[in-house]
């Protein structure tokens, strides 16, 4: 696979929908976009009339050879960029993006024989959804599992799409609710723990490729536990989203 060129592009917002209570799904059409692998991100730059600029990274929920680029942005209260994207951006607006970026945190169906373990916290599911979706569209034999930590059922990103992939047996999804659960859920709300990782994720002896993504403290504790549970540090790829 030859590397995809990285560059600045002007994208046009073609669709916006409510993704969760606090997040929007924003679809861009980006003429000249070279396509992107599942899991990569882009840098988005906003420019004020006085020339002031702010730039942030966003993972890409879509993949493949298309000029359609799907983002899912969660509002960080009092943030500078995410509240603008969630509340102020409208279809037809132009947004400046730099990408695709991050050849490290990608899943390439052609290059991977092993099973795949995805572990997400909150909006950290965005690049992992891109991987699951690519797997769902392809015929590869990898066994996909997702452990997804999220505050409440209403905070799940790509809930319908993940449900559909699970129904087709392309992925096995375990939700972990940290604030409130659906009625009749077997366990009370709580964080992901080392024990939960041991119970619900691919064990180290099947040598899965592991992708962990979410808020920095979440990613750091999960990846430490995975190594304690015997996973090869190099088999655990992380994408910290920041925050603390």
């Amino acid at each position: 696979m030859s590397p995809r060129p990285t560059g600045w592009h002007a994208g046009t917002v073609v669709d916006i929908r409510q993704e969760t209570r606090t997040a929007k799904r924003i679809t861009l059409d980006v003429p000249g976009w070279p396509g992107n692998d599942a899991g990569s991100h882009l840098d988005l730059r906003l420019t004020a009339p006085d020339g002031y600029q702010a730039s942030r990274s966003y993972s890409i929920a879509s993949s493949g050879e298309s000029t359609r680029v799907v983002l899912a942005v969660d509002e960080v209260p009092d943030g500078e960029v995410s509240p603008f994207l969630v509340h102020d951006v409208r279809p037809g607006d132009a947004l400046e993006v730099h990408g695709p970026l991050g050849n490290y945190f990608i899943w390439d169906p052609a290059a991977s024989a092993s099973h795949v373990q995805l572990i997400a916290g909150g909006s950290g599911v965005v690049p992992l959804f891109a991987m699951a979706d690519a797997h769902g569209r392809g015929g590869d034999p990898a066994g996909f599992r997702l452990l997804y930590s999220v505050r409440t059922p209403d905070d799940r990103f790509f809930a319908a799409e993940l449900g559909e992939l699970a129904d087709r047996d392309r992925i096995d999804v375990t939700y972990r609710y940290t604030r409130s659960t659906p009625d009749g859920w077997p366990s009370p709300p709580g964080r992901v723990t080392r024990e939960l990782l041991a119970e619900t994720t691919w064990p180290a002896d099947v040598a899965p490729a592991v992708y962990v993504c979410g808020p920095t403290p979440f990613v750091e504790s999960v990846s430490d536990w995975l190594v304690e549970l015997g996973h090869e540090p190099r088999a655990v790829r992380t994408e910290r989203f920041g925050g603390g």
Partner: protein
Amino acid sequence: MSFITRGFTGRGRERDPALPPGQSLVEDWPVLSAGPTPEIDTADWEFTVVTENGRHSWTWDEMQALGVEDVTVDIHCVTHWSKLGMAWRGVPLDKIFEEVETSHDYVMAHSYGGYTTNVPLDELLDGQAWIAFEADGEPLGAEHGGPARLLVPHLYFWKSAKWVRGLVTMPDDDPGFWEQNGYHLHGDPWKEERYW
């Protein structure tokens, strides 16, 4: 190829004539970090000044005993935000340099964690700079540079080194951490001395 993003103005981009060019007011106090946040106990804290004539050092209590001042100053971060009328508490560098002799014209501030920044010595004196340990009536949290940071409010705020542990005087204006990496040697917000 940059173009203006419809509707975007930036966080709290409120104009005020008291602000240097390109700055706007913020209500919160953003935290910028370039590395892990050191946690230093005041019992272990030590402040050292090294000159061509030798080394002086002060413990936490010795530093306080030099004489604490309350000041109200404006701070200006090179990333375009400012805070006006912030209350700080600290020891003026004049007190420290009463006990130190040097013929050097510049200093390098050194921090726990390895950060450095350069400042002309005469811009640290005459009530222009402090070793500060309280802001807005609270002890400085580690994320804001506590237990003590340098406070040089008339220069961009990266000069106000967090977690400061000492000064080394220098005959020449050698660059510190950000200054080696593209930021201005001096950093006057009124002259917009952002990059070199």
